[in-house]
Each structure stands twice: as structure tokens, then as C-alpha cells.
């Protein structure tokens, strides 16, 4: 096909700019919002995703990871006695009152794990080592929250509920969805920090033996260990994500903003493609008179939509990547996995083709006899 679609599209530069601006706006809004959604969702389940275990055991009816009640640590022995279990560790996530040197208080989420095991440990440790947590009263926090907690360097000592907390290292990029900083420490310290009774735990993390069917192990644990709920790691992750994203409405707001971007994009692109179509209506009439089928004419219009989509997508992605990059240093965590880039390409194309439908409708109905009108 001679380049009718391209030429007509590029002829009106102002309109093309408006079209592309609309697409870029939509692409950036959708990408950033969905990136935020994914970022939020993975933030809510960060501890679960990095736990390294197959099964989480908590008190009955735990709605999500941050909200759990204690249960007797004796259950640990029942778990360890269950065939198929390679390792099981007690684990705490609870609220701790951090006292800054200036006397101010910060709520924190204390994470207690066994530093002799591989499970439940902090990740992305950039200053110090996980083993350093074996020192007395040792804690580790994320660099991002250090200013809030009044921490300026390793070696400083603070108090959590009146107990000493000695900072031995920093992680990087571990955000919390609740915005209360995580404080990583040993299980024993954590019991003190969150004022848990000596024979209680919050979770038991279970690693299955290699080759063991996790669903079956989950079932066996449910049979043997009473008074607790047993989740596979993906189940617990989804439960937690779902709670934060949908029960709180946080995710809905983000997704609505993305949807808004889509609607605005469709409307702007539909308007400009329609205006371009109207400008060239006589040409479409001529094409019809020349014997072009409706299908041929659709291809011209859809080609314009697709070219606009591709240009807008590239520009929009460039802006999005920039925004994502900028957010790394700010408070929001936006994640842009590459399948989403591919998905956005599909969505942008779809958006533009849907926007072209109005124009296609118009062209289908033009009377080719118009070509004789002056």
C-alpha cells in the first residue's frame, strides 16, 4: 500500500503531537500506576517472598502477615516431627516502640528470626553481615528509614521498649507497606522487643525436604498440628497482598487511576484520529469510488492508529522508566517488570485501535457519492 496512512498522519504535526501526548500521558499514567500497584503488592509481601521457606504456620485466622497473634512455641516440635519437614524455625513479626535519641518515638515492625538458619533473614544487606546479628542486642534496619529512626551510622545504640538495640548493619531498598520500618533481629531479642512471652512465637517457618510435595506437607501439618493455620508460601503471599490491595482500597485507588489513564488515552486518541479522518474524508470517499473495499479503508485508519500507538508507546515508556528511576530515591516503590512492558505495548495498541473504531464507523457510513460534491 502506498504510504497514504503515514503521510496523512504526519501531515498535521500539531495534531500528531496532541495524539502522541495523549498516548504518552495514558502510557505513563497506566505504567506508573500499575508499577505502583505491583510495587505496593510486593512490598506488602516482601518478608514472605524473601523468607526462603515453603510453608508458613500462624495462629488461626491470621488475615495478613502484619496482623498475627502469638501461639505456643511447643508446636514447633510437632512440626519438626512431621515427615517431610527439613527445617522449621520460629519467627516473629510484631510491633516495637523505637526510641530516638531526641526522645521521640517511632513505631517499628520487629522481625525476629534465627540467624543460625537461612530462613527469614534480611536481604540486600549493604552494611554489615547477617551473622553480625548474633552479637548481643544487635539489630539491622534499612538505610531508607535510618533518618526517621535517628540512625546515622553503624554502632549506635537505641532502645525498643526500654531494651537496648545496637545497630550492626543496614539493608537497602526494603520498604514496608505500613511505612513502619522493619527492625531485623534475632528471635530471642524480638521476643523482648515486642513483649512476647518466653514460650510463644508468632509464626513457624517450614522448609520441606527436597522432592516433598508442599501441598501434601501442608495437609499433613494441618492434621498433626492443631490450633494453627498452615499456608503454603504463595498462599500466604496472596492473602497478604490481597488484604492490603483490596480490603484497604489502596490497590483499588491505584487501579482506578490506571483505568482513568486508559480512558483519557482512548478519548484523546479517538478525538485526534477522528479529526484526522474528517480532514481526509474526501480521500476516503475517493478510495471508495475507486473500488476500495471497506476493509482496505479500515487498514489505512488502523495503520495510522498503530503508528501512533508505537510512537506514543516508545515515548511513554521512556518517560515511565525515568519516573520509575526517580522514584527509587523517593518514597514510592514502583516496579516495572519487563512482561509489563510487553503488556503495555499490547494495551497501547488496543487503546489506539479501539480509538480508531469511531473513525472507522464514520468512514463506513460516508456516501461515496460525496466525491462529486464541490
Amino acid at each position: 500500500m502506498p504510504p497514504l496512512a503515514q503521510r496523512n498522519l504526519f501531515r498535521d504535526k500539531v495534531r500528531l503531537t496532541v495524539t502522541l501526548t495523549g498516548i504518552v500521558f495514558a502510557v505513563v499514567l497506566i505504567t506508573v500506576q500499575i508499577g505502583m500497584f505491583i510495587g505496593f503488592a510486593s512490598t506488602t509481601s516482601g518478608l514472605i517472598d524473601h523468607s526462603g521457606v515453603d510453608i508458613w504456620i500462624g495462629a488461626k485466622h491470621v488475615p495478613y502477615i502484619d496482623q498475627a497473634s502469638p501461639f505456643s512455641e511447643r508446636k514447633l516440635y510437632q512440626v519438626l516431627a512431621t515427615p517431610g519437614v527439613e527445617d522449621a524455625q520460629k519467627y516473629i513479626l510484631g510491633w516495637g516502640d523505637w526510641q530516638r535519641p531526641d526522645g521521640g518515638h517511632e513505631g517499628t515492625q520487629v522481625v525476629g528470626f534465627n540467624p543460625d538458619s537461612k530462613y527469614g533473614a534480611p536481604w540486600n544487606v549493604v552494611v554489615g553481615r547477617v551473622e553480625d546479628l548474633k552479637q548481643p542486642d544487635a539489630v539491622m534496619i534499612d538505610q531508607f528509614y535510618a533518618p526517621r529512626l535517628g540512625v546515622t551510622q553503624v554502632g549506635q545504640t537505641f532502645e525498643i521498649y526500654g531494651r537496648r538495640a545496637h545497630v550492626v548493619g543496614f539493608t537497602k531498598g526494603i520498604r514496608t507497606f505500613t511505612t513502619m520500618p522493619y527492625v531485623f533481629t534475632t528471635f530471642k531479642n524480638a521476643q523482648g522487643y515486642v513483649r512476647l512471652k518466653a514460650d510463644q512465637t508468632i509464626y513457624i517457618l517450614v522448609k520441606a525436604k527436597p522432592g516433598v510435595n508442599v501441598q501434601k506437607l501442608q495437609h499433613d501439618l494441618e492434621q498433626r498440628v492443631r490450633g494453627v493455620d498452615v499456608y503454603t508460601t504463595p498462599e500466604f503471599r496472596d492473602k497478604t497482598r490481597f488484604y492490603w490491595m483490596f480490603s484497604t482500597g489502596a490497590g483499588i485507588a491505584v487501579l482506578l487511576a490506571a483505568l482513568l489513564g486508559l480512558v483519557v488515552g482512548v478519548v484523546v486518541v479517538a478525538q485526534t484520529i477522528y479529526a484526522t479522518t474528517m480532514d481526509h474524508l474526501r480521500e476516503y470517499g475517493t478510495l471508495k469510488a475507486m473500488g476500495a473495499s471497506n476493509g482496505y479503508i479500515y487498514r489505512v485508519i488502523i495503520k495510522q492508529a498503530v503508528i501512533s500507538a508505537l510512537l506514543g508507546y516508545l515515548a511513554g515508556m521512556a518517560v515511565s522508566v525515568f519516573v520509575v528511576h526517580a522514584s527509587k530515591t523517593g518514597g514510592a516503590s514502583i516496579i516495572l517488570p519487563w512482561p509489563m512492558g510487553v503488556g503495555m505495548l499490547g494495551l497501547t495498541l488496543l487503546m489506539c485501535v479501539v480509538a480508531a473504531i469511531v473513525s472507522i464507523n464514520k468512514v463506513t457510513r460516508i456516501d461515496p457519492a460525496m466525491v462529486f460534491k464541490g
Partner: protein
Amino acid sequence: MDTAIAVREVTKTYESGEAAVPALRGVDLEVSSGEVVLLMGPSGSGKTTLLSIMGCILRPTSGDVRIGGREVTRLSEKELPRVRLDHIGFIFQGFNLFPTLTAGENIELALDLKGVRGKVAQRRAGQLLEQVDLSAKYNTFPSDLSGGQKQRVAIARALAGEPDIILADEPTGALDSHAGRAVIEMLYNLAHQEGRAVAIVTHDNRTLEFGDRIAHIEDGRIQEKNAVPGADTFPSAVTDQRNAAVPGTVFPVPAWSQSFAQG
């Protein structure tokens, strides 16, 4: 001579809102391969309507249209484009070239509709431009062509589909007499040298010498009177044999019809 296109008892009433405008009130017309028929008549008499119906871009309210012997008025919207593609070449007063395509690309687009693409299409477009004496203008955009050149590109484009019927609506209306004459001569040759059926709507008396017959339309009917100046002296003896086919509706161009330049 073969009848390329025949309309029979065609009426057309435009429904515009409440009012119904009768544009054609029963028209019979045939155009044979190799002849030029001129459609003349005052503004609003229905010439363009008739041409649109002949070219299958407008459906008549009643009556039928045969193209190459095939009844086309009852074809579906899906089938009609194919009829136009295979049989009809339109020439417009306003040229209707695609302004963002060069002369050559305008023709390539018409060839593309026929499924002729790439190098073959370019070569064929070049030949067609040569046929209208514009071989140097392949890469020129319509805005850089004169009116006469534009119309010749339009003729070349119409020929790309190898139509057996050429329908032209006031093809010289926007041209000066010199350019107009060249265009009309080309249309004449398409009939007389290439054997196509050519119907030309015209107001232009300078066109008369190139018509084999004239159909004069008034109020949506082909009138039984001659439109040419000096009609009252028109000798009935000159009536061509061909008119027997459509009795009393179409008239031959008088031999004394004036030369192009005089109009």
C-alpha cells in the same frame, strides 16, 4: 458495438429530512464501448446523480443498471466495490488526487487496489504517466502540478484499474481552455482508440465536438430536444442509427457543432 453500461427507467429521490427531492424521474441511457456520450443540462438537473448511479456509488430508487450485461442495482454493499474496481474509472471536476501522495504514488494506490504492487506497480504507474504525457512528474506532489496536469494524473489513475467505462463529471470545469482541450482529447481517445465507454457530464460547449452523442437532461429526465445552440435548425435526418436503441432520448452531435476554442 457492445453496450458497456445501460440504465433503464432509473429514478432517484433524495430523502432529505421531511422533503423528498426527485432528482431523476425515469432515465434510460446506454453507453457503448468506443463512444463518448455527453450529459448536458442545467445545474440541478440530475447529471451528477445519474453519473453516480451509473458508477455504482449511488443506488437508484427504482430502475436498473446493467454493467457488461450484469444487473448491479441489487448487489450488496460488499459486492459493489468490486464492480467499481473492475469496470469503472471516475474523473472528477476537483481531481480528487491524494494530496500527500506523489503523482506516481496516486497511481500506485489505484494499482494496489487491483493487487498490483512493488516494482511492477511502479513500472505500470510510469507507463500510465507517460500515456498522459507526464512521465517527468512521477515524484511530483499534486500541489506542484497545474490543473491540467492534475486532471491528467487523475486520468492515468483512473486507467490503472483498466476500466471499460470512464465516467467524468465536469472534467474541464476547473481548467483553462487549453488544458481542458487536452483532457477532453484524452478522454475522446480512450473511447475511440482504446474502445472504452466514456460518459462526460459537461457544461462546456467546447466539449461538443468530442461527443458522439449528447443526452440533454432537464428536471431529472432526458429531454427530447436538442441542447446545442441553434437547436431549432437541427436536422432530424442527422439522427444516428444508434439512437434507435434508445429512441427519442439521445441525440447525435450535429456535424456543425462548434470547435473547442470557440466555446
